[in-house]
């Protein structure tokens, strides 16, 4: 269905933590929610539905969604974690829209926070959670080593070089140095040589081609409500379309996958993801095309995933996103700004909330309230939340104009 202007984010808040201002996920989510409620001009008692992504890594208690509602003493019709990896953090906006358009909710609070670098020993955590504990983990993989399998094939099949991946990292840093919360801001401007001189983490991925931890903690909270309520809001951001798709859990299962839509290409492959399907749903629902987007926020945890995601979102043919990078379109001042807070590569990953940071950046840009470099005149943004081993995908198209 075409969504039109059925629902919008009518209130928004974000919160940040670092070593000098150590705050845990519960505190961060509470702060962001308080700001969002005030921004929407409503009380917590008006909220009747709560969605979160999966529990923060820095506070892994089961039923975190309900822990948070209880912490606020905020009884709701339903609260739920949307848990297909980090994609759930983006997909919660779509679930909120469905609650609004069916009339089952008046105000849906979508919130996510995390503060992994401040509270968790991050060295061993990643691979232990995302590698197959039977057929992968015994061999000693890390998250970069698993993502490197995609990089190995992608580079081989499309003639992409390490210097190409380095250019992706350089452009992300060009955005990140302007954002006050970006984890890699302190390193300043870099060049391709900087990236190529950084050590391999897992070949072909060097340190600067991998997302960093940090900032210490982040949170984003969004109040979703109907078009009528949006009409009186200060700066509503319409959710014009959304989509999602999931193809596997462990990477070994992705290699075994044969039953999948044609948009994934001939299987097995490690060059195309279910994002193709999620994006198609979102464009169809919004009645828009990639050309209609003024801005893109990705889940680019490695330099090569930035390229694959741009292709799967429809901005370049398969294997050709590097042409877009070389053209300068994605850089500050370019025609298609991408990851305008520095993305996961330079802004960093505070944990599961990295997926909400992408939404925060889009909302701030569309409201003319960027913390870093502003994209003047941007009206439409596509935001991608990915999770697992390029397994789970959710897309939201946001607009500051009623269409």
């Amino acid at each position: 269905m075409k969504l039109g202007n059925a629902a919008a984010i009518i209130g928004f808040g974000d919160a940040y933590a670092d070593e000098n201002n150590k705050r845990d996920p519960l505190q961060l989510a509470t702060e962001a929610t308080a700001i969002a409620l005030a921004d929407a001009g409503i009380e917590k008692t008006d909220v009747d539905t709560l969605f979160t992504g999966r529990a923060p890594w820095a506070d892994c208690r089961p039923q975190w969604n309900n822990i948070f509602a209880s912490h606020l003493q905020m009884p709701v019709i339903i609260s739920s974690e949307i848990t297909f990896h980090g994609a759930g953090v983006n997909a919660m906006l779509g679930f909120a829209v469905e609650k609004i358009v069916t009339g089952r909710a008046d105000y849906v609070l979508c919130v996510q926070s995390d503060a992994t670098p401040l509270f968790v020993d991050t060295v061993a955590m990643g691979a232990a959670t995302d590698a197959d504990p039977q057929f992968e983990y015994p061999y000693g993989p890390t998250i970069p080593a698993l993502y490197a399998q995609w990089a190995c094939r992608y580079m081989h099949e499309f003639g992409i070089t390490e210097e190409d991946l380095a250019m992706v990292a350089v452009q992300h840093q060009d955005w990140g140095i302007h954002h006050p919360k970006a984890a890699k801001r302190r390193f300043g401007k870099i060049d391709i040589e900087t990236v190529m001189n950084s050590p391999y983490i897992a070949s072909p991925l060097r340190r600067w081609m991998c997302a960093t931890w940090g900032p210490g903690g982040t949170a984003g909270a969004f109040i979703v409500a109907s078009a009528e309520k949006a009409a009186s809001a200060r700066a509503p951001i319409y959710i014009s379309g959304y989509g999602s798709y999931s193809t596997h859990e462990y990477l070994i299962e992705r290699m075994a996958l044969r039953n999948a839509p044609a948009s994934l290409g001939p299987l097995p492959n490690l060059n195309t993801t279910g994002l193709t399907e999620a994006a198609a749903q979102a464009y169809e629902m919004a009645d828009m095309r990639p050309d209609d987007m003024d801005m893109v926020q990705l889940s680019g945890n490695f330099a090569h995933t930035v390229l694959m995601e741009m292709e799967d979102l429809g901005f370049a043919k398969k294997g050709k996103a590097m042409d877009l990078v070389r053209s300068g379109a994605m850089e500050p001042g370019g025609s298609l700004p991408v990851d305008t807070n520095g993305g996961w590569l330079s802004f960093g990953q505070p944990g599961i909330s990295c997926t909400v940071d992408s939404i925060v950046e889009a909302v701030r840009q569309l409201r003319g309230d960027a913390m870093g470099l502003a994209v003047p005149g941007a009206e439409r943004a596509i935001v991608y939340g990915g999770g697992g081993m390029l397994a789970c995908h959710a897309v939201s198209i946001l607009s500051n104009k009623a269409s």
Partner: protein
Amino acid sequence: MTQAPQPAIQELPLPQVTQDALPYWEALKEEKLIFQRCTSCKSAIFPPRSDFCPYCNTYGQIEWEQSTGHGKVYSFSVVERPPTSAWNDRVPYNLGFIWLDEDWVIFSEIRGASKDMAIDASVSVEYETRGDFVLPIFNLRT
């Protein structure tokens, strides 16, 4: 990295075994690499399943078959920064997907000089004892 020193082997992780895969791990103790095949659609199946073929959706037609242990490298990465200190003595080590001759795919360590690692390089299985388990690993065939 052909002769990396062996760390205390019990520090390395052991597989968390599923019931579907019990025959696989039992066969490895006799240095046999086995996988499943659907007798209906003839597809090779791995990781192991119960009796439902994911490719043709028939039930009760899955049998175990022994692999030659020969295949080609589909993708690989040389790990320089390991997940835990238990792996420190082994870095760098090569991890990748191997496409076996019977048309199934396994994830494993690929032993051989990192500079010789390449897509489509030929590999063959060998076995490493770890605790009560035997893991299949692969060597570059030169």
